[in-house]
C-alpha cells in the first residue's frame, strides 16, 4: 500500500470551510489521519467539531475545500468514499422497528458485507449484545442503543471511523468496552477520529490531538507536541490544562520573581 515509504492518509481534510449564513463554522481546516492513528477532536461548544465530522461523512457539503476518505473525494465520489467509512453520532439514531439482529443484517447488506453472520456473532459478544438480538431499540437502555449503533458501524470493517461523543451516558463497564473496541480497531489499521469533551478519555486513547476553536485549528499533534506549543506550561500538564490555556479560559501563571 505504501509507496516510497509514505503511508497514504485514510482521512485527508484540505482547507475545509463551512459557512452558515455568513458565519464560518469551520474555517480553512486541514489535517490528515493515518492508518492506526486515533485523532482526538476537542474544543469548546460551537468550535466546529460536529460540523467537521458531518462534512467528512458527507452529511453536509463543504462550502470550500476537500475531504478525501481513502483517497476518494466525498463530494465527487460519495458512494466510494462512504463504503470505507463509519460514523457513530452522539445520539444513537436507530430504526424504531428493526431488531438488533435486523439492524446488523440491514447495514451488512447496505455495505455489501460478505458472510455477515459470523461478523455479527463476534460483535454481539464484543459489545455485550448477546441475548438482545431480537429486541427492538425502544426496549434497550441508552448504553445498549449506543453499543448497537457502534456494532452497525463496525460490521463492514470500515477503514475510517468517526465517533462523535461516543461515551456520553454510558456506565463504567460500557465505557471500558468501547475504549477497548476503539483501540482494537486502531490496532487493526483503521483511522479513527473521536470528538469528545471527556479530555481524560481523549488523552488516554488518542495518538494525536486536534484542538479547534471558532472553527479554526488551534493545536495539532501528539500530546508532547501540543504541550510544547503552549507557552508557560507545566512539564506534566495534562490535556485539560493545555485546553484551558490554549483556549484562553485560564490565564498563564504569574512569572515567579
Amino acid at each position, binding site marked *: 500500500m505504501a509507496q516510497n515509504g509514505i503511508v497514504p492518509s485514510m482521512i485527508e481534510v484540505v482547507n475545509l470551510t463551512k459557512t452558515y449564513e455568513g458565519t464560518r463554522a469551520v474555517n480553512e481546516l486541514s489535517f490528515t489521519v493515518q492508518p492506526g492513528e486515533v485523532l482526538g477532536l476537542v474544543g469548546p461548544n460551537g468550535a466546529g467539531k460536529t460540523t467537521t465530522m458531518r462534512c467528512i*461523512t458527507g452529511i453536509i457539503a463543504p462550502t470550500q475545500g476537500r475531504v478525501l476518505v481513502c483517497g476518494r473525494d466525498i463530494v465527487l465520489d460519495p458512494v466510494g468514499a*462512504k463504503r470505507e467509512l463509519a460514523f457513530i453520532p452522539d445520539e444513537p439514531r436507530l*430504526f424504531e422497528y428493526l431488531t438488533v439482529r435486523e439492524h446488523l*443484517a*440491514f447495514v451488512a*447488506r*447496505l455495505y455489501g458485507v460478505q458472510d455477515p453472520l459470523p461478523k455479527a456473532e463476534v460483535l454481539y459478544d464484543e459489545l455485550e449484545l448477546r441475548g438482545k438480538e431480537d429486541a427492538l431499540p425502544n426496549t434497550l437502555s441508552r448504553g445498549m442503543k449506543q453499543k448497537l449503533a457502534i456494532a452497525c458501524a463496525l460490521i463492514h470493517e470500515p477503514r475510517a471511523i468517526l465517533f462523535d461523543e461516543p461515551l456520553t451516558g454510558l456506565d463504567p463497564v460500557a465505557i471500558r468496552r468501547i475504549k477497548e473496541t476503539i483501540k482494537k480497531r486502531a490496532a487493526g489499521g483503521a483511522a479513527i477520529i473521536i470528538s469528545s469533551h471527556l479530555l481524560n478519555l481523549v488523552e488516554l486513547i488518542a495518538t494525536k490531538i486536534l484542538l479547534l476553536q471558532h472553527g479554526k485549528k488551534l493545536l495539532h499533534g501528539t500530546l508532547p507536541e501540543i504541550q510544547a506549543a503552549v507557552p508557560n506550561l507545566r512539564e506534566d500538564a495534562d490535556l485539560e490544562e493545555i485546553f484551558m490555556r490554549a483556549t484562553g479560559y485560564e490565564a498563564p501563571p504569574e512569572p515567579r520573581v
Partner: protein
Amino acid sequence: MTNSALFFLLTRSAKNSLVHKISRLKNPRYLLPFLAGMAYLWVMIGMPSFSSNQVAHDAESIAPVVQSVSGVLVLFFGAMAWLFAPNNPTLYMNEAEVTQLCTAPLTRQQIIRYRWMRAQLPLLFMAAVAFAFAFRRPGIFPPYASVGAWCMVNLLLLNGVAAALLAGKLKALGFGRVGRHMPGALLVGALVGVFALNFTPPPPLKQFDEFMPWLDNLTHSGLAGYVLWPLRQVTAMASAQDLPTFARGLCVALLLMFALDQFATRLNTPFEEDALALAQNIGRRLEAFRTGGASGAALAKLQTAKPSRFKLAEQGPAWRAMMWKSVIAQTRGVSMRTFVPFLLIGVVLLVVMATQGEERFVDLAIVTMGSVITIMLVIAGPQVLRNDLRAELQRLDYIRSLPVRGKDILRGEVYGSAALISVALVLVVFGSVFAFRGFGFRIEYAHRVVIVLSAAFMLPPVVVLGFALENGAAVLMPSWAAVAPGSGGVELVGRNMLMTILRLILMSLVLSVPAGLVAAGIAAAVAGYRAGIDAAAWFAPLSALLAGLVTMLEVELLLAFFGRRLENLDPSSERF
C-alpha cells in the same frame, strides 16, 4: 445489493411495526382506543348509505363538475408546491434515516426512491379507506376509486418532491431567495394567464344552474382545456364508469409520475444537510406536539422569544406562578400570523354572503361562524391546548419536588390555559352578537348586552371545568392522558374520542345544577318580557352569574380532589 437492503428495511420495519401494534392490543389501554377508532371509521366511511337510485343518478350527473373542480384543485396545489418550494423542506427523513442512509454508500437517486417507497405505506392505507368508502356506494367502482385516489396523491407527492429538489438545487448553485422562487412564479403566472383568457364574472351562488356552464367554459375551453386535460383524466379515474376511462387516466398518471421521478432524481440535489436539519426540527416538534398539543408544537418552532407581556409579581400565592408559567407556555408560540388564515376565511365567507344581495345571508354567516367557533373552543379547546399538567407529566418528579400543594399546581395549570380560551370565547360572542342584524328583526342594544354578559359569566367557568377534567384525567390515568410513543391513526382518533366523550359526560353531570339555574333565569326573563317587564331580561345574566359561581365552586372541589391524588402519584409507577 443496496436496493435489496432498502427493501429489507421497508418490509421488515412494516412487519415489525404491525406485529408490535397488534401484540399491544392485549393491553386495554391500546385496545379500547383502537376499537373506538375503528367504530368511528366504520361510521364515517364503511357504513352503507346513499343507496337510492336517485342519489346514484345525481352523483353521475355532477361527475363532470366534480372532475373539473378536482382537476383545478390538483393543478392549484401542484402549482403552489412549485411557488412555495424554496420555503419547504427538500426531503423529509427521520434522524435514523439521515444518519444511517446519508453516510452509507447509497446514491441520492436511491435515497429519493426509498423515501418515495416509504411514503407508500400510509398511501396504501388511504387507498384501502377509499376502497371501503366506495364499497356499497352506487356509481363508484371500489378498485377504480382506490387506485384513482392512490395515483392522485402520489402525483402530488412526487410533484412536491420535484419542486423542493429543484429549489434545493438552485440554492446549491448559489441562487438567492428571489431566484429560487422564479420557476414557481413563472409557472403560476403562466397558469393565471391561461385561465384569465377564459374568465368571466361568476354567477351568484343561488343561480346554481348558471354556475355549471360558467365552470365548464372556464375549465374546458381554449388553452386551459388543454392544460387541464391530463389532470381531468387522472381525477376521472376514481369515479370512472368504464375500463377505457380508468385505463386512460392510469396511463396519464403513470406517465406524469415517471416524468416527475426522472426530473427529481436527475437533478442530483445535495439534500443531506437540509434533511438533517429538518429531521432534528421535526423530531423536536413531534415530541412537543405529543406532550403539549398545538401550543407545544408552536413553542417548539421558536428559536428565541421576546420577554412575555405577562409579568409575574415578585410575591404572591404559588398557584399564580404556576398559572403565569401556563399562560406563557400556551401563548409564546402564538402570534398574529396564527389567526390570519381564520380571519381570511371569515372575511371571504362574509364577502361572498354580502354579495348575494340579501341581508339574511350575512346574518346566517355570522350565526354559523359564531356558533361553530364557540362550540369548537368549548369542546375541542381543552384537548388541543395540552401545554399544562399533561405536558408536565414527563417531568412529574420535578413538579412533585416543588414546595407547592397539588391543588395549587393544578389550579395554576388549569386557570392559565382556560384564561386564554375564555378571552377568545368572550370576544367571539361579543363580535357575533353585536354584528348580528337579527334576520330582519330589531334587537335592542340592552338585549345584546344581556346576551354577552350571560355568555361572559357562564362560558369561562365551563371552559375551566373542561380543563380541570382533562388535567384530572392526567392525574387519575396518567398513562391514558399521555399520548404513547408510536400512537397515531385509528388508535389516536379513538383515544381522543373516548376522552372527549368521557369529559362531556362528566361535564353534563357537573353542569346539571348550573344549567338548571340558567334555565330558570331564562324562563323568568322570558316570562317577565311577555308580561311587559323590560328589566326581566336581566334575570338571564344574573342566573348565569350564579351558575358560573356554582360551577367554579364545583371546579374548586374537583381540583382539591385531583390535587390530593397528584400528591400521592408515584412518578416511577407510570410509563408516560
